């Protein structure tokens, strides 16, 4: 590698390089960083966010955005946990996932029927739906939290998701690998997967070329709803509580993870594999900053700053490529 190519690599991957430098500094300053306990901690935080980010990747690749995932998480979490007693854990789990799917379908229905095919219009619609889903969750529980451990019937599946291990890896990690594998196969080997990036690249051209763009939009929002529901189940199992506002803030984190991974916000380019890297980086960053004693408020600031920086740099890259 010549110096020239190293410089251009750093310039193209500024944020990734920055977070790696942060990790190295943390490892030197704070020896706790590289302990097994801390690495397990990172993996545990990884669980819920990666599910959302994987779903969000398809949405952003298709040229859209979904701010309602925060609301979907809250709604699915309270519905699932509260239904364990009346209908049993397996049925509750299935109902929870179905609620996520229905939310995704409602979003896509609103977008297609309203012709809200610009990213900004989709952003406002899904933001509004997020308020609606959260309000439904609040009304459903009367603004109270639902405790998993208060369930009288067995909730062994949730305990397994929250704490269980299969050999050396956690159950959450197995769920993540299965989801990743399925989504990766859909993305790279199927017709609908190719339709997503074509729709995101240029919707009019895709439609004129015979790609079923409307079906693609329904598909990506449905996948995002299901993944948000899985994320909600994982999150509720880990913290053993479901609160009607627990999803707040997750939507910006998921978008951040996708964008930092290198999926273009304009649509058309990206991959679920990149999102895995992006999510790992985001969680590692917040872990490093926690160990270094940086307040959560400043971390919030940094999240906003990195989001702006990532989009700005991505835009510059596309221009310099002659786009």
């Amino acid at each position, binding site marked *: 590698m010549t110096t020239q190519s190293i410089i251009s690599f750093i310039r193209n991957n500024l944020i990734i390089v920055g977070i790696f430098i942060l990790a190295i500094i943390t490892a030197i300053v704070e020896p706790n960083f590289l302990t097994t306990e801390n690495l397990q901690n990172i993996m545990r935080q990884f669980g819920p966010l990666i599910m959302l980010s994987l779903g969000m990747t398809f949405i952003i690749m298709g040229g859209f955005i979904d701010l309602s995932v925060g609301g979907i998480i809250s709604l699915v979490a309270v519905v699932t946990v509260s239904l364990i007693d009346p209908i049993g854990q397996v049925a509750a789990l299935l109902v929870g996932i179905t609620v996520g799917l229905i939310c995704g379908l409602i979003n896509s229905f609103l977008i297609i029927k309203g012709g809200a095919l610009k990213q900004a*219009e989709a952003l*406002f619609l899904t933001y*509004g*739906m997020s308020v609606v889903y959260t309000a439904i969750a609040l009304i459903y529980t009367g*603004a109270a939290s639902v405790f998993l451990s208060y369930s009288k019937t067995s909730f062994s599946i949730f305990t397994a998701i929250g704490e269980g291990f299969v050999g050396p890896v956690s159950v959450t990690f197995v769920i993540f690998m299965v989801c990743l594998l399925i989504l990766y196969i859909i993305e790279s080997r199927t017709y609908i997967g190719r339709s997503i990036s074509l729709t995101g690249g240029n919707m009019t051209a895709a439609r004129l070329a015979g790609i079923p763009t409307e079906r693609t939009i329904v598909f990506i929002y449905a996948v995002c709803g299901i993944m948000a529901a899985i994320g909600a189940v994982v999150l509720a199992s880990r913290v053993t509580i479901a609160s009607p506002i627990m999803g707040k803030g997750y939507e910006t984190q998921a978008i951040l993870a996708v964008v930092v991974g290198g999926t273009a916000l304009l649509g058309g380019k990206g991959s679920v594999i990149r999102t895995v890297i992006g999510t790992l980086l985001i969680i590692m960053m917040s872990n490093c900053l926690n160990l270094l004693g940086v307040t959560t408020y*400043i971390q919030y600031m940094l999240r906003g700053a990195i989001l702006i920086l990532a989009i700005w740099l991505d835009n510059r890259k596309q221009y310099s490529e002659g786009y």
Partner: protein
Amino acid sequence: MLNIKLTQPIKNVLSAQKAPLAMLLIFITMLFFKTPFYTSYNLIDLVNSNSTLLIVAMGFTVVLVAGGVDLSVGGVMTVSGIIAIQLINAGVAIPIAVLVSILFGAIIGAINGYLTVYQNTEPFIITLGMGVLLTGVAQQLTTARPISCTNPDFQNLANYKLFGQIPVLILVMIATVIIVVWILRSTSFGRNCYAIGGDYEVAKYSGINVLTTKTLTFVISGVTAALAGVMLSSWVNSGNSTYGDQTALYIASAVVVGGTSFAGGIGGAFKSLLGVMFIGVLSNAFNMIQIDSYIQQLLVGLFIVGIIWLDCYDRKLKKEVV
């Protein structure tokens, strides 16, 4: 034939004047409920409590007319209010503290404008990130606790009542509305905004300085948001990092209800005034007939989705006709 001729103008009026008609409907409905809705106290309070939102909406409208979006208004509002209080608590004179806060809003607006206009990025996601960033700043400044101003004079900035009746806040709001209406209607800058929002490329080739004009719209939005933040902090005599949480969405839907479109080039400041007042009257009426607050949240959410959906749907229909 006759039927169509008669219904067409009615339909036109209905679709063009949604906000005032709906507001009229609420006023009529409230006649049938025995509530303190029709008291001068409630009506003045209604205007007063919506004044800060109206001030924000004015700048928001200018950005929207020029084809941009500014979702950082909530963040700017919160931080500028906190800056004003903390400067005054540190012993800075009130006028200087207010000016510094407003300058802060202008700087954030200029950064938003530079990133979106000169660097050609999507305005909504950049300003969304800016909103997250500013919320973090607000939390850091206050350690996420409400703060209050130690100088009692600061309250008078918004609460002093002229002629013992009308709070200064309302006068500041009216002044802002008049200035923005004048800017959009009667200056070349305002007309350029409409031209840019209508068609960016055409405006550029007709010799309008599109870059400067569009950046200035973001600066105006930052200034009005900062002014609103200072007035809000003075009105309730406290600064809190959670004040701006839903402002951007609320303002966006209110402005769209008024008839300003996300597509740019359509709308006006006076329409936004009607839009914001409509949502204000609606939630006031909800409170008066004692609807549960979470059901209110649900209704407002559904309402916002409905309004934005209709705005998109109208444009879709027009596109198909063309």
